[in-house]
């Protein structure tokens, strides 16, 4: 599964995208797996990953990830 990061989260992690091999049942579970990698990921996610999209659609942490191609995490949006 492809995982993307944007804006302050991307900058804080120094990572724009990655292929995540570990299965995760839900968006929330994937979030926990990513955060568990290091204190840096834990901290960046706590501060800058308030929103997420599953296959380009804004989604809550309860969203199942079966058959999902692309997940993105990012800070609250600030367009306009």
């Amino acid at each position, binding site marked *: 599964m492809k995982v993307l990061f944007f804006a302050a989260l991307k*900058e804080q992690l120094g990572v724009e995208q990655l292929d995540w091999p570990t299965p995760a049942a839900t968006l929330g579970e994937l979030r926990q797996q990513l955060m568990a990698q290091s204190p840096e990921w834990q901290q960046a996610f706590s501060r800058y990953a308030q929103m997420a999209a599953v296959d380009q659609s804004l989604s809550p942490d309860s969203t199942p990830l079966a058959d999902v191609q692309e997940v993105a995490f990012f800070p609250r949006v*600030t367009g306009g």
Partner: protein
Amino acid sequence: MIALQREPLDLNALNAQLESPNGETGAAVTFCGTVRDDGQVIALELDHYPAMTELAMQQLVAEAEQRWTLAKVLLIHRVGRIELGQPIVWVGVTSAHRAEAFAACEFLMDALKSRIPLWKKVHYHDGRSEWVEAKGSDAQRAER
């Protein structure tokens, strides 16, 4: 019509698209958001999510068209670097009646600020830069 563009907005061309020379629509409401000098700002930089941002803008327009009876809806947002005083976003709505045009235009701006994947970074005179943090008020307005 929606667009994400790196080029400056051509406001005259956008406004011209709202004209109604045969009298089809009586009311046109526009919003233009500009890079504001909120203390030593020289420019903004807009990050977006290429695969998703346009799609989300299209869905937003469809939602507005379902909620109100609208003739035209135009939603244009710049991405990349935008200098102080330049327009960042322009929304234009026409309708037979003004209450619908006002409501739809304000809804589109509220939603754009709270659910479309766009992120602003501010560049200051002294070389510093920082990501803009979302204001609580935008999230609250969108929930109305």
